[in-house]
């Protein structure tokens, strides 16, 4: 598996499965990332997404964490992007919770 993985400012990671990207026709992630107001950190290199800034620059905030690449890829691409945004204190809260949150109940 060939991945492009990078850390982001708020504490999380973006992982792009480049094998899936090879057959993607839309390259929606690169398009949305280069829309005015977005991070403009992705570019196409050898037909797959690549980072314009260095990994360190991305981690220091070049990635604007708008989440658009993941959502656009899900709609128009090959579902190749996973953004992981950990919140350990919430996990801890949910682990100790005696009641079930409503999103896990009914319907």
């Amino acid at each position, binding site marked *: 598996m060939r991945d492009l993985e990078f850390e982001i400012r708020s504490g999380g990671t973006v992982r792009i499965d480049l094998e899936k990207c090879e057959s993607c026709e839309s390259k929606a992630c690169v398009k949305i990332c280069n829309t005015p107001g977005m991070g403009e950190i992705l570019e196409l290199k050898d037909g797959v997404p690549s980072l314009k800034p260095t990994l360190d620059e991305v981690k220091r905030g070049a990635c604007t*964490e*708008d*989440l*658009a690449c993941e*959502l656009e890829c899900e709609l128009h691409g090959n579902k190749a992007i996973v953004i992981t945004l950990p919140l350990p204190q919430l996990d801890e*809260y949910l682990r100790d*919770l005696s009641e*079930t949150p*409503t999103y896990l109940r009914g*319907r």
Partner: protein
Amino acid sequence: MARLFEYQGKSLFKRKGIPVPEGKFVQSLDEAMEVADELGFPLAVKAQVFGGGRGKAGGILFAEDRESLSQAVNGLLGKRFRGASVEGLLIEQKVAIRKEVYMAVTADPSTRQPVGIVSPKGGVDIEETSEREPTAVFRVSIDILRGFYYYDAMNLLRQGGGLESREMLSLANLFTSLYQVYREYDCKLAEINPLALTDRGAIAVDARVDIDDDALARQTSLHLDVAEEAGERVATLLEIAAGTIDENDHRGSVHFVQIDPDGSYAGAEGRVSIGFDCVGAGTSLTTMDELVPVGYYPINFCDSSGNPVGSKLYRITKIIMAQPQIEGYVFVSCVSSQQLDNTARGIIKAFKELYPASGGQPNIPSILVFRGAWDDVALDLFREHGISDGRWIKVLGRDTTEKEAAGIFDALYKEWKESGGLE
């Protein structure tokens, strides 16, 4: 503002040489007995909770022997004061008080300087004393570049009167130490009330220390959780979780406080608990004003500002939805400059993770009102991702008022309830 418990405040006093009674923080009877073995009797048993009037409310008891200590510990641990449960006690040597003085260093927003305050009428609410007997409270503004010296403290103490020279000498030294606590730990308030004068000298019987939130990042030695100020209670786990969102990322901010953490107030008032998120605190208040009269109660307050990145909205939405009592979700933005398409993306990602089976369509009545920059894109995104098609969600645009939003939510909730709610 991060408020410290009395025992934490006293540990800072101790570091700067301010005398405090010998004591230890305990969370069980066994631990309390160990402290008694070490310190002997008589002992003071003090509930570690925030809020004034603790003594009058029965939060401070005295123990003369092991039996009365056992009664005091069992009587206080788990007891509720102003809605907060007592999770720990400070057990310390009882002090034989001869005279009580008030002493504090706090921030004065009007002069933008620290102010030293002293009053010979210690042991009571200083605000009350200040109103009832303004001539009994003495203040001096402190120039932080110049500092606060022994003779400055002496000048102030002399104004207070009622003190012997020997007492003033030791109090002046102690006052400069209190100023050091204030400065070194980035306090908003460092207060000793009462500062007891005893046969063995002055001793801080109580401690109130409030740290400036904005300085917590550099006060790592205090090991404090960052959370929005929640009045006189300890921050909840969800508030602490929310406090971490802005910790390393200052691109916009989110503010989250649980107004009714267990939904008990809403329940007692016969109102429906809902999760709540807003862009703009003013809109938040006007929306609450419309929701409450029709039977709903936002059990949390949440506001985002400064154009936060989408990941912040994702995280805060997961926190809001984690409140198990909620039977509805309301998001309303003011006509803001916040990039609402990114706000929408954060919420969409959270909804998709929370409701994977329905592709992000919530199972509780939810309305989202986007008004402001990129609001049309926000609406399109919810449509494109198929979330707007959900039976229990309405995604609305800039032509919706707060009153209309509350009415639409009310109708949606009633339909949802009639069809069985979560059953």
